[in-house]
């Protein structure tokens, strides 16, 4: 068995497979179907300082090899998370990481500070790339100044592993990655969804309530692999890759492009066991190719 233990800054993972925020609930929704101990970790739903109702229905439409969503950070707020969800998930047999989002820099910092106090949450993923909210979200992640200001503010109050999730809806993602590295990020994860749109031609209206939404699924995988490859060459901090990973071969592409770990997202909707299947598949691939550790292939494609 190859060694697939993974380290993302101070965060030790049993294997390099995480579940992407917003695609795996709080993990408990999948507990009947998989052994959560087989995962590297779970990144729970985007959490904000205040409760958010999210956007109106319809929030989702199927597209070629993917889907568009405009959920809009629907969640009950960080206080609800701390009081009612954290007690249920803190004993899960895997790492639990919280995805943190916000409308203002102050909100991001206050939410992160609240989660800093939770013993069993070793890391946060800072979402500066949600395309489905009118204020904040992606607005911070598409400029170097915006990204740096959020990351700096959160770094001041958050003392554990800080992962920053990047948007692909930018001209130069490597530049943004370097900026958040300089601002104190311990790792970056990429890519969030690509901004897209679909139209119902019979009703002559957008298929999503917000008109636009985030595209995910295998349709975006080549874009994601390219982004990971560009960012991994530009920064010294670890890169977590995601975007349309459906199987172990897809994951291997991301490792070769320079990712130290990966996230499985939309695949969870089609196959709720996808994440553990991929974790096992990575191991099998390494064994069958004579690799003793995952490290041997990380960034091997220059």
């Amino acid at each position: 068995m190859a060694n697939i233990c993974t380290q993302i800054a101070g965060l030790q993972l049993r294997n390099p497979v995480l579940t992407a925020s917003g695609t795996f609930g709080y993990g408990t929704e999948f507990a009947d179907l998989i052994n959560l101990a087989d995962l590297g970790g779970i990144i729970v739903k985007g959490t904000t300082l205040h409760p958010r109702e999210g956007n109106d229905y319809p929030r989702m439409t199927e597209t070629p090899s993917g889907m568009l969503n405009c959920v809009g950070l629907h969640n009950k707020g960080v206080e609800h998370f701390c009081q009612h969800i954290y007690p249920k998930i803190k004993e899960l047999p895997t790492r639990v990481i919280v995805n943190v989002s916000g409308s203002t820099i102050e909100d991001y910092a206050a939410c992160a500070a609240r989660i800093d106090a939770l013993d069993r949450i070793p890391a946060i993923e800072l979402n500066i790339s949600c395309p489905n909210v009118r204020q904040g979200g992606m607005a911070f992640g598409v400029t170097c100044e915006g990204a740096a200001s959020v990351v700096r503010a959160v770094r001041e109050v958050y003392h554990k592993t800080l992962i920053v999730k990047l948007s692909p809806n930018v001209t130069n993602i490597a530049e943004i990655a370097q900026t958040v590295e300089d601002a104190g990020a311990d790792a970056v994860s990429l890519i969030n969804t690509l901004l897209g749109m679909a139209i119902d031609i019979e009703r002559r209206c957008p298929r999503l309530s917000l008109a636009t939404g985030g595209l995910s699924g295998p349709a975006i995988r080549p874009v994601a692999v390219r982004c990971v490859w560009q960012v991994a060459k530009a920064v010294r901090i670890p890169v977590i890759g995601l975007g349309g990973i459906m199987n172990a071969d897809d994951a291997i592409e991301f490792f070769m492009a320079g990712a130290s770990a990966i996230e499985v997202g939309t695949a969870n909707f089609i196959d709720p066991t996808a994440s553990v299947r991929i974790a096992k598949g990575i191991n099998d691939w390494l064994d069958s190719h004579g690799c003793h550790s995952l490290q041997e292939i990380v960034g091997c494609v220059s």
Partner: protein
Amino acid sequence: MKYLRNFTVTAVEHLNPRNILLRLTDPAAPLPDCHPGQFVEVKVDGSDKTFLRRPLSIHFVDRVNNELWLLVQMVGDGTRALANLQTGNTLNVLLPLGNGFSPVQQQGERVLLVGGGVGVAPLLEYGKYLCEHHATPIFLLGARTREDVLQLDRFKQYGEVYVTTEDGSLGEQGFVTQHSILQNSTFDRISVCGPKPMMQAVAQYARKSNLPCEVSLENLMACGLGACLCCVEKTKKGNVCVCTDGPVFNINDLTW
């Protein structure tokens, strides 16, 4: 408890040019416990244009033959691919999902089950359940034409069946809310599944008549597990997932 199982297709009955009855069995194990009104998510193989699973109501559970029945309307590429399944094919099914219809409230209660088009699907299993628990289901099925009335004989096994068609080719002409049974009989409560305008009309009738009423929604969904938060319905508690808080809702909880 939820399961992900590979079922074998035992029969594909073509009921009319748009609807099929898919009969499935699990060769390896008994079917899990399912409440009437719950649904499944099936994986659609062999369809290039589709990606997500398809949510389908549990139409009937045949414990004797260990069969799960699904009623499918061909509306797009995914459902057309399901209609092309052959006996012996495998279908990956996630089940059972959602909450289901209310249990029997009192022996002998008269429950009006109103279905429109393919929305009749969950009412067969619910009708069977009510019969088995000493309640009386009365079916009111609406469709566009005679050909669109699904599973009539099977519904008749469990209770009186009344029909409306828009063209009058079977039963009374018009919509379900215009059927004379609503004037000529009394009911203790109503359960509805069908197109949203029909369910809203029945909900309005129930409110006017002071009858408890529950409706089964079919919002577009991805995961079926409460993870993606795509299938939300606006309720008095805010946006909630139809897949986990529903698909069955009491109309008093909705903002209709």
